[in-house]
């Protein structure tokens, strides 16, 4: 029977089956960070258990590290410092490989996995973070888990899971100038809604996906969770293999060839069954921006904020009205021209070198608008050093942007980089929930190029007017 990419990875990792269809699923890579692991290690310790397979496990600090240039000597917030110290104690006690803040390889867990060659096609990859779906761009089955499951993987190297359903998102055609993987993904979420992918693994395919570089694919799979999917997937191809070759933890020499031979068997078979198919034309996509407090509230930058009066469902109408109040927007207003206070370029969605290049291409030779604060936060120490070598950091600092150290930063409001109440932010991150970037903060999700355009003009702007 023809199988999908998801079916193949799943089948290859079933260790055992329980009566009701629940499987004991083997996990190849477990990524650990400071926020969702302390209680899991504590559970292991209380039960007298070890980490089952340390060579499948990697730890890093990202969520609550400061991104200020002097962070190695500055005093961190005490609760954050305790979480970091707790992780450092745990990795030492349990023998887990760890990238501390002082290591150039430190960065956002979903940036460093692919960057180091730790996340590879055909693998099962988990982390106590919903954006683990990012690694699906490598052709791996990657999904977020809670802390109980973190402990379960540490103790057994497996999870108890039932298979998901298969969804195909096919994007054919050529993506217009000024658009990126981020714009495709926001358009997908706008189409299917934040619950549209619930119960599914979402495979992205079609000409426009094949044409994307790895960074674009990683951005898309990253936000598959925003569409409710358990995971996102892109079939591994020459772009994937080229990206992996030579990375520190990737297979080398004859091992690499053996790996590629296996990886080439992974793409979905012709005639494989999908439970749901969604199709988009790439040339229809216009740079996207969100207006509300759910990622599905997305419109083209040329569009207007919708009017709740047009919504027939009473509960939905009330929610739209609440979103407009929270966001400080008027029904029917053009989204372009909305003034911003802060611009954030970073996060596990958009902090790779390609994202830095896209933002720098817009910022080059220009200057930040008066009164706007711009944070550019590379996804890892290695992205930072590459961006400096390529002259991108200089473009940013010349433009009056802040060039910072690697971490999750202003994506999630649990480190010093936060919005203050009422501040409006053009952000390349993944969630625009109320309070996500700091209590009372207002988030508009968009691509790195669109974020840079907002920085230069001080308002939400169609980047195509600047290139």
């Amino acid at each position, binding site marked *: 029977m023809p199988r999908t990419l998801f079916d193949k990875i799943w089948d290859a990792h079933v260790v055992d089956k*329980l009566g009701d269809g629940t499987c004991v699923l083997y996990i190849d890579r477990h990524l650990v960070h400071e926020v969702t692991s302390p209680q899991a290690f504590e559970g292991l310790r209380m039960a007298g258990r070890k980490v089952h397979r340390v060579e499948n496990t990697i730890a890093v600090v990202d*969520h609550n590290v400061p991104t200020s240039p002097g962070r190695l000597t500055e005093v961190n*917030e005490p609760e954050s410092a305790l979480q970091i110290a707790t992780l450092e104690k745990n990795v030492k006690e349990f023998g887990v490989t760890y990238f501390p803040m002082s290591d150039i390889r430190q960065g956002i867990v979903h940036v460093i996995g692919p960057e180091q060659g730790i996340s590879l096609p055909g693998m099962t990859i988990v982390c106590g973070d*919903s954006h683990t779906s990012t690694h699906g761009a490598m052709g791996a089955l990657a999904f977020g888990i809670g802390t*109980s*499951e973190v402990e379960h993987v540490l*103790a057994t190297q497996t999870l108890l899971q039932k298979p998901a359903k298969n969804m195909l998102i096919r994007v054919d055609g050529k993506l217009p100038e000024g658009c990126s993987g981020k714009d495709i993904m926001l358009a997908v979420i706008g189409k299917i809604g*934040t619950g549209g992918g619930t119960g599914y693994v979402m495979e992205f395919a079609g000409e426009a996906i094949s044409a994307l570089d790895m960074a674009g694919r990683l951005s898309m799979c990253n936000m598959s969770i925003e569409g409710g999917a358990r995971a996102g997937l892109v079939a591994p191809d020459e772009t994937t293999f080229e990206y992996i070759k030579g990375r520190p933890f990737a297979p080398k020499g004859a091992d690499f060839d053996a790996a590629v031979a296996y990886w080439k068997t992974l793409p979905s078979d012709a005639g494989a069954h999908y439970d749901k198919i969604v199709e988009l034309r790439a040339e229809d996509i216009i740079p996207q921006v969100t207006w509300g407090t759910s990622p599905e509230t997305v419109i083209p930058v040329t569009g207007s904020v919708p009017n709740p009066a047009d919504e027939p469902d009473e509960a939905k109408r009330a929610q739209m009205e609440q979103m407009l109040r929270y966001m400080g927007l008027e029904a029917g207003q053009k989204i372009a021209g909305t003034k911003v206070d802060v611009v954030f370029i970073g996060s596990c969605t958009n902090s790779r070198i390609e994202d830095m290049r896209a933002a720098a291409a817009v910022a080059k030779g220009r200057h930040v608008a008066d009164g706007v604060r711009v944070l550019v936060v590379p996804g890892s120490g290695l992205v930072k050093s590459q961006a400096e070598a390529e002259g991108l950091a200089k473009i940013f600092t010349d433009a009056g942007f802040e060039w910072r150290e690697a971490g999750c930063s202003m994506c*999630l409001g649990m480190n010093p980089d936060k919005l203050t109440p009422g501040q409006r932010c053009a952000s390349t991150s993944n969630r625009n929930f109320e309070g996500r970037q700091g209590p009372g903060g207002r988030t508009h999700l968009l691509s790195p190029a669109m974020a840079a355009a907002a920085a230069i003009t001080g308002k939400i702007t169609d980047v195509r007017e600047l290139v």
Partner: protein
Amino acid sequence: MDKFTTLTATAAPLNVDNIDTDKIIPARFLKTIKRTGLGKSLFADMRYNADGSEKPDFVLNQERYRRAEILVAGDNFGCGSSREHAPWALKDFGIRCIIAPSFADIFFNNSFKNGLLPIALPEEICATLREDAAMGGNAKLTIDLARQMVIRPNGEEIPFEVDAFRKHCLLNGLDDIGLTLEHAAAITAYEAKIPSWQPKIQGA
């Protein structure tokens, strides 16, 4: 894990779709290395004003819902992050069962690991249960997990679906890890077949 067998309790209506995990527990409260004590921060931004005073309109601030143990919520409950702090906070507050038209996958999984029962029922049934819940402590709902029934205050029984394995674990308060370790031999046999080209993360 705490057992879940039957529960008869006040239900609080929360008719909002897409209640995300940042609403359930904002990220600033995740800086803990414990599982306990999060109940006071549950729904923090919906429940408290900036000065820490309660917002009187929020359902769980109303006297008759302060001891609610069931929540009847809107569609796609628990969307967003994987933070298990969300079920921990609900549980710590005293919520033991959530009924909604649908749940986000990770939240749904996390709930079962903590003796918190998520029940998915069609929107029209949830609407009826929210009407029951609107009567506060005068109209308690009963959840009978063994029989897979929600019992309305008028005695009407509404069947619900639950995975057999998860039901078994909840009814008996079983720890997943212990159960999985019964498959240790199969795990070892699987590991013996991992291809030699697959790199190990070590010596970094």
